[in-house]
């Protein structure tokens, strides 16, 4: 029986990232195999038996993937994706701030960017630190506003955090989820936080396999350090003792600057020496000195480690001091989260109860909810260089229209407001021409302006271009490229904020003229 190639859609994911874990089932739903779903890589499966089979997966985002196939006759199978049912997004104004620990304690850092925005969520990025810098790379991201409690996520520099407002219920706090930059780690941690321990084990085993297959880097960067730490947590949780001795060395060389590495080393030491707390003691004290660990559940492990040493050595004052320092953070930490998630007003004031503080001055502002109704001027907006654009459009054989950009996220620095993200406000006529459901969001990214277009028939989207017009009349256009169920165009852009409007180049509505 020939193998079957299982494929799936991994919109917007970097090839090689593990986006989830799948189960291969027979017609009785007998579990035959669990395997990781890797973006851009199909899975070759040899079932070795007759009878219809199923592949089923539930991603951390809530999307379900499913396909059935006949292992005898089918050679390729593509998993069908079903996103979670949409929920109405309620209007809410939010803010986000980054905190950095300096010699005088925690202070707002101002280095937080919005890299994506949807009606019900916003993506926040802590910029990466320069290559080679492995100290001072832990930040706290706090999200608040709308009368909701403002949790604080402890993350490594370079992380991308998704913030959503709760729909209902007792949890009147912003929900924060780790989504990057290492999607494989984020997938593993989100599965574990959601209680899907079987799926977490599949992704964790794959992460460990990849790390063990590669030689340790001489100059490990932040990403490698984070991967090593996340993999070591996985090994600690699954209790496989054999590889843990080697992992102690790996932690020391790759991630010694992360507090997580010290506390992991402490637990690995405990695992090796059942009745000897002395070796673990030094690691736990070191972890408590270094600051806040970043991986979800780590503060509880740190507290429990110190607590165990304290019970074995009640006379040990150093341990008592460390325990007292960690205790308020452990009491303020969420137990099930992909990141260390704290309650409190600011990082140096954690509290077991929720808090809804005022935002620091450097906070980024954003708005979630249904598309706002833009205030319209009596006349449609006119381009300063309208004649030039019409000429350009005529030469291109297409229609060029201006589209107003409605801000959805604004950064306030002192009195200065800078637009960080927005939505394109299509006029009714243009909206009809795009199919009636079109929507587009615009955000700053490292590459420039990222324009995400949804709700447009793929054939039409492939023929659309979006652009900017410079002060000298230069028209810069970019085509939309497919990215899952949306299409994305990236425009060169260096200004701090966003433009007031973009231009959209529409294809001729009749048959497309042939090129000569």
């Amino acid at each position: 029986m020939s193998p079957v190639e299982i494929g799936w859609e991994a919109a917007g994911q970097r090839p090689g990232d593990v986006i989830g874990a799948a189960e291969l089932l027979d017609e009785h739903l007998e579990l035959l195999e669990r395997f990781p779903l890797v973006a851009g890589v199909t899975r070759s499966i040899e079932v070795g038996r007759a009878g219809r089979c199923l592949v089923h997966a539930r991603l951390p985002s809530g999307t379900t993937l499913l396909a059935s196939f006949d292992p005898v006759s089918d050679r390729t199978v593509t998993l069908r994706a079903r996103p979670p049912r949409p929920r109405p997004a309620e209007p809410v104004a939010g803010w986000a701030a980054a905190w950095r620990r300096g010699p005088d304690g925690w202070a707002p850092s101002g280095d937080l960017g919005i890299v994506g925005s949807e009606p019900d969520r916003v993506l926040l990025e802590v910029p990466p630190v320069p290559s080679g810098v492995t100290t001072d790379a832990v930040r706290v991201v706090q999200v608040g506003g709308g009368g909701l409690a403002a949790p604080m996520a402890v993350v490594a520099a370079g992380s991308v955090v998704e913030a959503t407002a709760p729909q209902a219920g007792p949890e009147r706090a912003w929900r924060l989820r780790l989504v990057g930059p290492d999607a494989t780690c984020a997938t593993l941690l989100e599965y574990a936080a959601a209680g899907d321990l079987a799926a977490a084990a599949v992704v964790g085993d794959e992460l460990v396999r990849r790390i063990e297959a590669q030689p340790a880097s001489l100059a490990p960067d932040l990403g490698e350090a984070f991967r090593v730490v996340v993999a070591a947590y996985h090994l600690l949780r699954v209790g496989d003792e054999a590889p843990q001795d080697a992992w102690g060395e790996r932690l020391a060389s790759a991630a010694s600057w992360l507090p997580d590495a010290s506390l992991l080393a402490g637990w690995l030491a405990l695992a090796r020496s059942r009745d000897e707390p002395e070796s673990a003691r030094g690691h736990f004290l070191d972890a408590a000195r270094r600051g806040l660990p970043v991986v979800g559940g780590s503060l509880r492990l740190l507290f429990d480690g110190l607590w165990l040493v304290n019970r074995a050595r009640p006379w040990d004052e150093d341990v008592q001091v460390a325990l007292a320092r960690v205790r308020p953070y452990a009491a303020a930490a969420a137990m099930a989260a992909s990141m260390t998630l704290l309650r409190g007003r600011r990082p140096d004031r954690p509290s077991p109860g929720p808090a809804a503080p005022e935002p620091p001055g450097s906070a980024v502002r954003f708005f979630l909810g249904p598309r706002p109704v833009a205030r319209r001027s009596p006349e449609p907006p006119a381009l300063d260089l309208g004649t030039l654009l019409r000429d350009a459009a005529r030469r291109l054989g297409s229609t060029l229209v201006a589209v107003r950009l409605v801000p959805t996220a604004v950064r306030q620095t002192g009195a200065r407001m800078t637009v960080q993200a927005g939505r394109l406000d299509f006029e009714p006529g243009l909206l009809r021409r795009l199919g009636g459901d079109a929507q587009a969001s615009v955000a700053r990214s490292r590459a420039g302006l990222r324009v995400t277009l949804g709700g447009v028939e793929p054939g039409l989207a492939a023929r659309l271009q979006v652009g900017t017009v410079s002060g000298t009349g230069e028209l810069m256009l970019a085509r939309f490229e497919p990215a899952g169920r949306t299409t994305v165009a990236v425009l060169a852009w260096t200004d701090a904020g966003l433009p007031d409007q973009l231009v959209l180049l529409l294809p001729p509505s009749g048959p497309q003229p042939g090129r000569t």
Partner: protein
Amino acid sequence: VTTVFDRTDGVAQTHALVIGVGRYRHLHGGARPADDAMARSLGQLGSPATSALAVARFLVDEHVTDPEVPLGSVELAVSPAGPVDAASEIEVGGGRVPVEPATFARVRDAVDRWFSRCQRHTGNVAFLYFSGHGVAREHVALLLEDFAERPQELFEHAVDLEALHLGMAACRASTHFVDACRSVPPALLERREVRARALLDGWHRGPRPDAPIVYATGHDEKAFGRPGGLTRYADALLRALHGLGARREKGAWRVTTDQVGLAVAEVLRHGNEVPGTPVQHAQVVGSGRGSVLRVLPGVPGVPFRLGCDPAAATDAASMRLIALRDGRLADHRDGGSGDWLGEVAAGAYDFQVHFERRDFRDGRLEVVAYPPWLDDLLPVEPA
């Protein structure tokens, strides 16, 4: 004693400790309320005793003959809040066994016996269910009937849950089901630390690899129950143990440590969408490597929610579920409003929709009723 069932043998077994506390002597509404702000802020509970008895009954009735980890023993301590809550008896083997109250002294002795039995075989599974008040700081303190007896040492009669969990290292697998609020009363914030009792010395070889804790709520959230009835969590737990936490492996459906918590959380999450239901989120902490908690005698039922996209088409549709294995009609709905809710045996199905008035085009979709839930939408086009 609190031992209501004991067939401890030299094979791998399940040993359970089940505690339900609704009556709190020294809290608000109790026989002798304590003069303490935190004690005054907590009251009597109407459903923990009923829930604990239901979990114990499930174990005694359904788990004794389990082919892999049959029930070895049950330690049961229950303090009902009142006559509508639950009788302090349980039926075992045709006779009624009185159940002792969940005071600290009795629970401590029960933990000793439970721990001792769990250690007798490396394949044993430890099962803990607690329903009652819980308050959260760095650890969760489970409050027993005589909590706050001495305001000078308020937490003398409370159990440190996470310390107990750390101390259960000797077992191959342990599952802790914590059906309690994790509230943070304002008076608790004024305390520098909470000294609940650990009960077990926890010096061991790291976090247990197969020992999830399934909490009924998130931090500073409340758990809910109907007075005299089951808590939402107990209902979800029993459904998970009946099959929603199962996978089919080696020819049988098995509830495992790495699935049961997710099933409890999913049952609660779907229940949250029923109008009027108090919202509650379960959380799973720790790790599970798939140790078997229960082998089901048959194929589990799986709840489903099916509909059409757009939603307007759902009301106009006749809907059918046809089993793909044998082509039999598993269920159908020829009229109704809103999503189609029901339950079918786990399996793969052809979901067919037909529009009598022909306002939409008929459609079909392959779906799989796979524990814990089937939830799907069939996109249809206007005719």
